[in-house]
């Protein structure tokens, strides 16, 4: 040891907890304030002898618990009540009884994590790279069957000779000075060195890879089965339960889809022309809805104004213009027939666009037609 060693404090060794308590009282009588004890096991009641205040850790746990409750409640309120309103069995969207279990769990989680971190940070005062007691020759006894009284060098009454004398009471087995250990140099030079950190990274990669390989190819048994793996019928998946191997099964013969309405004029465009009338009222709402559906289904081929210049031009067979005199003079029913039954290359859109939407699209188309081919009476 070439460096000069700085004194960190002094430790006195005692045989029994009772001797230690007497020693603590004597040291306090002498006016020492920065004292602590070392014991191989918890000494109940030592807090009162040392006059230690109860730990403040409880307040850390309380604050974290309150924060956890707040986070959990507001998160559930936001998720289930506002952002993605979910109706569960007709309950209110913000149904607080249902949210209590999650709130409780998050409160416990926050409080326990905060307590552990608070203990490490505030009570144990970590990170510390070492303790001056570790350099003491008493350490072996203090971890087996002896009890120590430590006076910190920060104590205003601390002077090494007086401490040595003061602690040499009748029951003291020995007194030793403690020196600050240069342990943070070890951290700086050994732990934070490039080779060691690289080794840590390498170990992390190696263990992750090994886990992956074993999991993927080694036939490892999962610790629990995932919920998605269940022995049940899944729509559109095969199933060995039925003879035909279909998970969903075939619909019963004669089954009709909901809201299906047979179309009378499938092969009779002239009938549609004369018989069908647009049932939708001409309002702003129906026009806007028609525009939306038009832009989704018609605009890609026919173009935004129905001029036959949609974005799919040259990639798809060219669609005719809807602004032609022929189409302008068709009745709504005739256009409805094309949408419903299809024409030439254009397929039927009956499956994609609902009946009402088809009529509303026609309202919109009429407005588009009029925008490019306005009659003279429209000019003010």
């Amino acid at each position, binding site marked *: 040891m070439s460096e000069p060693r700085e004194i960190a404090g002094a430790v006195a060794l005692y045989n029994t907890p009772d001797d230690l308590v007497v020693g603590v009282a004597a040291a306090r009588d002498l006016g020492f304030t920065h004292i602590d004890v070392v014991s191989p096991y918890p000494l109940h*009641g030592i807090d009162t002898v040392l006059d230690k205040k*109860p730990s403040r850790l409880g307040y850390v746990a309380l604050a974290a618990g309150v924060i956890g409750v707040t986070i959990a409640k507001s998160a559930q309120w936001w998720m289930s009540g506002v952002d993605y309103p979910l109706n569960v069995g007709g*309950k209110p969207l913000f149904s607080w009884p249902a949210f209590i279990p999650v709130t409780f769990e998050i409160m416990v989680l926050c409080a326990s994590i905060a307590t552990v971190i608070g203990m490490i940070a505030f009570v144990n005062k970590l990170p510390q790279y070492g303790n001056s007691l570790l350099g003491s020759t008493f350490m072996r006894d203090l971890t087996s069957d002896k009890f120590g009284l430590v006076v910190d060098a920060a104590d205003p009454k601390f002077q090494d000779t007086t401490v040595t004398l003061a602690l040499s009471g009748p029951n003291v087995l020995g007194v030793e000075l403690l020196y600050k250990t240069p342990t943070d140099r070890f951290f700086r030079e050994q732990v934070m060195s490039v080779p060691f950190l690289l080794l840590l990274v390498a170990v992390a990669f190696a263990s992750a890879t090994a886990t992956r390989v074993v999991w993927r190819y080694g036939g490892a048994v999962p610790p629990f089965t995932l919920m998605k793996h269940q022995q049940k019928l899944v729509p559109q998946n095969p199933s060995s339960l039925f003879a035909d191997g279909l998970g969903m099964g075939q619909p019963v013969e004669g089954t009709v889809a909901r809201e299906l309405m047979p179309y009378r004029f499938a092969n009779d465009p002239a009938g549609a022309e004369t018989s069908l009338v647009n049932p939708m009222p001409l309002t702003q709402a129906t026009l806007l809805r028609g525009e939306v559906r038009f832009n989704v289904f018609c605009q890609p081929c026919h173009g935004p104004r129905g001029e036959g210049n949609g974005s799919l031009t040259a990639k798809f067979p060219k669609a005719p213009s809807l602004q032609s005199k022929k189409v302008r003079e068709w009745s709504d029913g005739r256009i409805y027939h094309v949408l419903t039954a299809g024409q030439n290359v254009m397929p039927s859109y009956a499956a994609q666009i609902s009946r009402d939407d088809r009529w509303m699209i026609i309202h919109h188309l009429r407005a588009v037609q009029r925008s490019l081919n306005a009659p003279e009476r429209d000019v003010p």
Partner: protein
Amino acid sequence: MTTGLDDIRHEPTPMPPSLRRKAITTGIIGIVLLIPAALFDFTRFLANWLVLFAFVLSVGVGSLFLVGLEYTVRARWSVPFRRIWENMAALIPLSVILAVPLILGMHSLYEWTHADVVAGDHVLANKAAYLNIPFFLARLAVYFAVWLAFYRLFIRTSLKQDGTGDEDLTRLSIRVAPAFLILFAFTVTFAGIDLLMSLTPHWVSTMFGPAFAINAVVAGLAATVLVAVLLKMNGMLPERLRQDNFYNLGALLFAMNTFWCYMAFSQFMLIWYSNLPLEMTWYRARYENGWFIVSLSMIVVQFAVPFIALLSRSAKMNLERLRWVAIWVLVARFLDLYWIVLPSVPDATPFSWKDLWVPFVAVSIGIFVWIRRSSRAPLIPVRDPRLPAGLNFHL
């Protein structure tokens, strides 16, 4: 540190005469209120009698549970309080007497005791194998047999040890205590189902029985904490018995009360969530006829107030605080049993003068039993081998 037992009284501590006067006064008030209530509305009187019976029984078996718990976990901090638990467990033999009017009037309370009703009701007919009068009485007899057997065993060994100081008596109690805890769980759970849940025989909740068992523990604990605090305040317990021991009592009360709230809420939430007609009926009855405000107040009375009042470390050591929280929890336990029983009586509205006699009679019974038991033995188990460790307990 004092380790001797020189400051321990080896003879019974006389209770102040004012206590006996209080018991007599409350008893007289109770009986004066009881007679017109019984004449006016006999069904409601019987329902209130069931509340009284369930409450007294809860305190009794809860106290006995705490004795068994101490032996099972070999706790030392609670040894100075054990005689209080043993004395309050004397409410169990008294409950046998309280059960007699209940059995005689069971036709007014329990729908399933009427053969004609059961015959015309598909659900009750299917349950008749369990819910019938002979089997009901046999079960009650078994419960009481179990409780009284362990009551006698625990109390006799403890009192015998006061004279002999024989350590084998403690070992005997420690050996049988785990068996008692298991039997306690079954008997009290089924007692709750038989006495209280069968008031509404169509309704079923798997949480009801366990919640009643925990209710008994909380009631026994609250009553005995109150007794311990009052004894300590009146200087009848050793000076050395310090805050650390009372801290543990407070912590246990805090934990068990919160546990009860957890069970009660679990029952409510599952039924509220699934909203099935068969299960909703029980809570529906507690939404109507003015019971809704009582039901809602449970959140504050049962949970919020005791929880906040006992949350901090210093609160559990503060005797004043412990005293009023113990009274509060005891009242809350009573209110809970009242809230379980009364809405099951057809068309019963909450808080009538016809119910006033119950708390008076209950308090009177409790004080009388305490005076009688405490005049027979010292207030703490003086020769228990673990007593010095219990008196010198540090957190």
